[in-house]
């Protein structure tokens, strides 16, 4: 159990081992570990950020959707209103048109009636003249009684 030169040999071995570990083993491994740690931290941060972004996007989408719904409802309302207006308008127009047409028809009827009366008056006066002529063939001088005949035909026309 004596201390001897083995001690020196062991110290040399130990020194070599420590040197080798320090130079070739520790740095790459601790480097890989640190780098991976950084990467994982980065990834976690990115994931968190992504989740936040997603939440924000979802909120935004909901807002947009709500707005769009509101807008479409507005549009539908407006369209309905407009349609009602159009219907009312056309109803009015139609009424007016109808009235005008009735009026025109009445005017025409009036006209026709007047023309028929005129015609009838002329025919009646001619017929009357003819009849009177035939009855009074000899006595009535067309020239002498022209004034009287004209008066009669005028009276007939007023009937």
């Amino acid at each position, binding site marked *: 159990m004596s201390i001897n030169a083995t001690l020196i040999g062991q110290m040399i071995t130990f020194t070599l081992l*420590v040197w080798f570990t320090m130079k070739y*083993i520790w740095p*790459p491994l601790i480097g890989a570990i640190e780098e991976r740690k950084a990467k994982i931290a980065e990834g976690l941060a990115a994931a968190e950020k992504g989740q936040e972004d997603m939440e924000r996007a979802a909120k935004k989408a909901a807002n947009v959707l709500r707005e769009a719904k509101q807008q479409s409802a507005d549009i539908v309302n407006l369209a309905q209103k407009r349609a009602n207006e159009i219907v009312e308008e056309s109803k009015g127009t139609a009424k007016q048109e109808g009235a005008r047409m009735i009026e025109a028809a009445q005017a025409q009827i009036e006209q026709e009636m007047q023309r028929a009366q005129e015609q009838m008056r002329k025919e009646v006066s001619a017929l009357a003249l003819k009849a009177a002529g035939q009855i009074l063939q000899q006595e009535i001088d067309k020239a002498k009684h022209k004034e009287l005949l004209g008066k009669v035909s005028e009276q007939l026309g007023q009937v």
Partner: protein
Amino acid sequence: MASEEHAAEGATGYIVHHLTPLSVGEGFWTLHLDTLFFSAVLGVLFIWFFKVAAEKATVGVPGTTQAFVEMMIEFVDQQVKDTFHGRSALIAPLGLTIFVWVFLWNFMDLFPVDILPAVAGMMGMEYMRVVPSTDLNATFALSISVFILIIFYSIKIKGVLGFAKELTCTPFGPWMMPFNLLLKLVEEIAKPISLALRLFGNLYAGELIFILIALLPWYIQPLLSFPWAIFHILIITLQAFIFMVLTIVYLSMAHEDH
């Protein structure tokens, strides 16, 4: 087992035989070949395993080997970070080397006590003591190396004067100088001695108990050696851990400027 072979020498002879190193040379220049050989082989094993892992190390998903090696590295790194509040390129790799190397030394304890000596006997070697930590030379080689580092860093960080001042003027001030110096010298020298003897004592005693168990009749041996081996898995890890942690603590003390 082998007790019959040594029947002539008796139980004492068997034990002594197992604890005698294979040595060459005379006096101080004696070399314990078994200690040198096994510690070198284990050192190379450690270096090789970790070097392969380091070469294949990726930042991505680690393989089994890399995960294991990284676990060790992080474990040691955590110990260093907890204790040592500075930056040093040496202390963490030193701690790793000590932890793994001492663990592997101690692990040799778990080989059945007669197997490797029997193999060596077949190769014509009379003595074979396979656990390097049962050799005081091995444990002192570690602790003295650590001691040299303690002195080196004390002088490097505090300067020669600063270190001298710490040795002479603490803890009781300059008027108690000789007493302070005595106290400090004992404190400093106790570090390598306690480191070396703690490891040696634990493993020597453990090995001794394995040898004693091997002397019992064969049908009792498993009953005793099995629980003792399981218990020893704790001991060998713990001793390697203690050696590493104390080294880190001592070196961080050397770095602290009072």
